[in-house]
């Protein structure tokens, strides 16, 4: 232990807290102390070109969209036929902000939006979706 430290040990305990030793909180179990930076590429790149989200993606082309957003065989009861055109990025952005997709009824809009929210990286439309929900700047 350094000379400095020994001196400090001579100071009465109560005052020692206030004279130099820094206080440190370990934090709550559920809290988080690390943010790992992810590429913002998607957000800015897609704000530059207008993007669209095919529903469903080409790999599952022409499946239907169930109320929970999953892709199910066409004709499944209670599921919705996919939109004829890919969803426009701007329309999805408004729906994400609490609105509804234009030109479709409420339940259908909800199902499509659940599909969009479930998109994973590597699925077509994901880059577009990622860009819409990430605040920038």
């Amino acid at each position, binding site marked *: 232990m350094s000379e400095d430290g020994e001196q400090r040990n001579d100071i009465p305990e109560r005052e020692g807290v206030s004279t130099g030793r820094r206080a440190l909180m370990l934090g709550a179990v559920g809290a988080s102390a690390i943010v790992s930076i992810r590429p913002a*590429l998607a957000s*800015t*790149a897609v*704000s*530059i070109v*207008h993007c669209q989200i095919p529903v469903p993606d080409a790999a599952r082309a022409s499946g239907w969209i169930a109320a929970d957003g999953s892709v199910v065989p066409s004709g499944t009861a209670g599921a919705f036929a996919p939109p004829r055109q890919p969803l426009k*990025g*701007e329309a999805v952005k408004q729906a994400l902000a609490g609105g509804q997709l234009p030109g479709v009824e409420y339940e259908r809009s909800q199902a499509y939006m659940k599909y969009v929210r479930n998109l994973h990286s590597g699925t077509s439309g994901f880059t577009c979706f990622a860009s819409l929900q990430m*605040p920038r*700047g």
Partner: protein
Amino acid sequence: MRHVFSVRIGPVGFRVGSDWRGPIRQLAALYAGYPQPEDGVPDFTVRLFAQRPWRRVIRPAVMIGGDFMIPDAAPLPLAQGLLAAEMAMNLQMALGQRRYLLLHASAVERDGRVLLMTGESGSGKSTLAALLSQRGWRLMGDEFALIDPVTGLAHAFPRLVSLKNAAIAVAEAAMPQARFGPLLEGTPKGAIRHLVPDAAAVAAMDTPGKPALLLFPRFGFAPDIREVAPGEVFMRLTQASTNYVAMGERGFDALTRLVLGIPAQAIDYPDTDHALAQVEALWDAL
């Protein structure tokens, strides 16, 4: 490709090929005073093409391609071909630029020192940069600021300034003598009109400047100015950079140096007059 246009904007050379003559003619007119890519070799290739051969003529729609592409890009009608070209060039920068740390920010310079303004679309950073260029500042760019990781200097990238919706009339009124591109109505972001940077901006585009102040403008709020702490600035700039992660340790160096080197303020403003006064006051107080 059938029609070709080449240009250098700041340190970056582009080659644009197109299936149609229209967008190329517009680019050539608007970028008339700009130089050619250095050594005749562009940094990036851009392609404007028809998805199917017949879409060249029947309901022509412009697909965007080039060295770097994203899978979800939507085509634009041929009438918006100029916009498609601008987007495609920006996309090459966003995805392919590796020499400079790219900040999604506008930049203006005075006395060799640079003011950076970053914010979401609609924050007014383009409009403010354009208006400041009328008041003794040099326009360096309205979309991307290029930070050199070796020197820490900001390089100019004075592409056409993209004015949207209400900002179009503001800029037209403030700069009656400026040159503008065609008014593009009904784009996915509303009306867009491009402003040609003035001759001074183009003449000085190879001169970098030292970053001096960073602002986060926000339009449509009661006037307010508050300091932004370095930790928050760092986080926000990583999200305002398309290539921060890809730049690796050079990006980390460039960004920490910038964040610790210059003050940062968030400014809220109800109209551009307020904003200009806030900017001048903060600048004078440096």
